[in-house]
């Protein structure tokens, strides 16, 4: 085989390899874009579904708040009831605010990194600047922020608990006994002042936000 023949064999192979690499990269990009597209569609669908009951909730609560007396035969509704309506209205408005912010957050990102960065930015700015409250506490003063005082091990346990994992399953996943898992769980609840798993989930969501 001459040197020229040898080269003519090599070049096409290199080109083929490059083309294969480009093809793989393109395929990966397409999959990534398809996933982002699907995520957007899901988010839009969820938001669309949530905005319907939110509209009804807002209208009902505002009407009850402003015209409560008419619904009870003309008498004033008790203060305690008015407080509850006020709180329910505030919580509903909070959810509306979240939906609004989510919509703004994801307005024009063109890639995953930008979308994630904008998400983080929005969450941080919202947590720091808004006067949104969590169960009546300003977010900055929320007792839930003691979440940061958990040990790394307790963070792991908390993630499993809030994910719906049982003591037995949690212990198995962490390579510890169910009893030890339960002890971690008790410490976490004591540190966070949680009464039950629902409280823990709420606190975790509050932290994420």
């Amino acid at each position: 085989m001459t040197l020229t023949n040898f080269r003519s064999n090599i070049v096409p192979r290199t080109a083929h390899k490059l083309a294969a690499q480009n093809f793989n990269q393109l395929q990966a990009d397409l999959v990534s874009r398809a996933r982002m597209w699907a995520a957007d569609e899901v988010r839009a669908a969820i938001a669309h579904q949530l905005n319907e009951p939110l509209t009804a909730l807002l209208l009902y609560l505002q009407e009850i708040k402003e015209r409560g007396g008419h619904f009870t035969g003309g008498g004033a509704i008790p203060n305690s009831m008015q407080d509850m309506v006020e709180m329910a209205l505030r919580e509903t408005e909070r959810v509306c605010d979240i939906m609004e912010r989510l919509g703004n957050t994801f307005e024009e990102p063109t890639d995953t990194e930008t979308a994630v960065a904008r998400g983080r930015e929005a969450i941080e700015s919202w947590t720091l600047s808004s006067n949104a409250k969590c169960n009546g506490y300003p977010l900055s003063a929320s007792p839930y922020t003691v979440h940061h005082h958990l040990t790394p091990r307790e963070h792991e346990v908390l993630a499993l608990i809030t994910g719906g994992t049982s003591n037995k399953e949690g212990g198995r996943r962490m390579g510890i006994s169910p009893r030890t898992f339960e002890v971690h769980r008790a410490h976490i609840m004591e540190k966070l002042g949680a009464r039950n798993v629902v409280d823990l989930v709420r606190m975790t969501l509050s932290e994420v936000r």
Partner: protein
Amino acid sequence: MTRVLVIDDDQSVSVAIQLMLARQGCDTVLAPDADVGVQTFESSKFDLAMVDIFIPEMDGLKIIKRFRERMPAVPIIAMTGFRFRNSMAPTLDFLGMAAQLGATYCLRKPFTLQQLIAAINSCFDPAISIDRTAETEK
């Protein structure tokens, strides 16, 4: 009495609107889908139509176009709970399209009672508009 037609497949929203408008002295008729909505609108006299853009069978945009062509004097409020833009491509601005097709006012869900009343007021001549403040003071 102001007659309002609400075309929305979400009953929780349309019933809430009906209740709110009843207290403002409006007679509100509900249509759960496009067919009933179009039939009701064209067989009776209404002062205002509220149309959700995403409803089964016929989309709200087509309804708005049809209403505008057949009853150009009746104000139309377009509503939608869809608001997210897709990160991969520009999402259609449905409320903008509704306005182009002749919607008098566009309401994004969720909206407040005040926003609903403001929307309705903006559709009418001030002389016949419903006014919550004025009514409350009676």
